């Protein structure tokens, strides 16, 4: 036979205390909602320049080095690209690039740049 609510309350003497604590929490939550919501702070961003798109898709670590240098010049030392400054990119444009244009040996292919260090 299923237990009724009163059965539970009767067998759990701590229940009134728990309900009191819960109602206190809800009351606090209600007060919190009334407070003004803090504005979300978005990290600064840097857009992937069109001229770096082939490099980003063939030697992404090299594209990172170049963008890290740009971020350092713009924001000063101590500000890290990837950590403090995020990358934005036109994903739809990137998805539309013909595969053969970058990754194949097609005569029109963009040659990979493989410089290791700046």
């Amino acid at each position, binding site marked *: 036979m299923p237990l009724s609510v009163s059965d539970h309350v009767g067998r759990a003497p701590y229940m009134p205390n728990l309900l009191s604590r819960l109602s206190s929490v809800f009351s606090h939550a209600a007060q919190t909602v009334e407070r003004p919501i803090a504005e979300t702070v978005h990290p600064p961003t840097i857009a992937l320049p069109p001229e770096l798109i082939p490099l*980003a898709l063939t030697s*992404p*670590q090299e594209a*990172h080095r170049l963008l890290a240098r740009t971020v350092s010049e713009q924001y000063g030392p101590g500000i890290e690209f990837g950590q403090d400054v995020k*990358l934005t990119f036109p994903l739809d444009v990137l998805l539309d690039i013909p595969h053969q244009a970058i990754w194949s040996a097609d005569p029109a292919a963009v040659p990979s740049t*493989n410089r290791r260090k700046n």
Partner: protein
Amino acid sequence: MAVQNLSHEEIFNSHYGPVDPGSYNLAGYLRCTRVRVLRLFEALREMGIRNGTILEVGSLYGTFSLALQRLGFQVTAIDRYDSYGPGFRPAIELMQRAGVRIVSTTREEETQILAGLGQFDVVIAMAVVEHIPHSPRQFLEQLVRQVKPGGGIALDTPNLPRYWNRIKMARGEPIFMDIKSQFYAELPYEGHHREYTGPELAWMLEQIGCAGPEIEYFDCNLFQFEHIHRPHIECLLRIVEDPTCADTILVCGRTPRP
């Protein structure tokens, strides 16, 4: 191609456990390896090493040894060829025709034979350290003993925190090798025992006495695919933000000069 006749069983012998033949693409693997060879060659140039003797430990198909020999180095390639099947014969012969010195060993005798090879300008072990069980310390100490004073050592290995592993972990999926393969493998298991991060690899080189190890991250596994898709593009752009998401680490160091 010298490795075309290798059977699936010879590539993944019983010590790897059963590996689904459909999941392995040799042509794709070789395309990826070209990128690894190029990165190594560039790293050696950065170190000012353009010629001399190279010892490759764990040369397998000879993709590094053959290319480096053709690029002007005098290469010695050592692997457990005596334990592998006859399918490796064409690859060995191709390396030998190019001038590579082949040293065939077995698991039981390789340590002693390796120690007797003397010292080289450069010692490389590509995609080997992740296969070493227990601790890689003894293996790395042996490698560094084979390097002349002031010579170079280079290792590459899968990058543990690569993008795809982060995706798998976020989904609650394993990042280790397929449990079916490892579970049914004959002992000793020869799959990946442990993968490493770049700083871990550099730290280990320092521990064995190499100065100023340089870490290089790059991504090569995408080259196995005939076409790349949206997730691949997203992976590449993530690497632009954070190179430690790349799938491969190359670390190079030098032994102290006398």
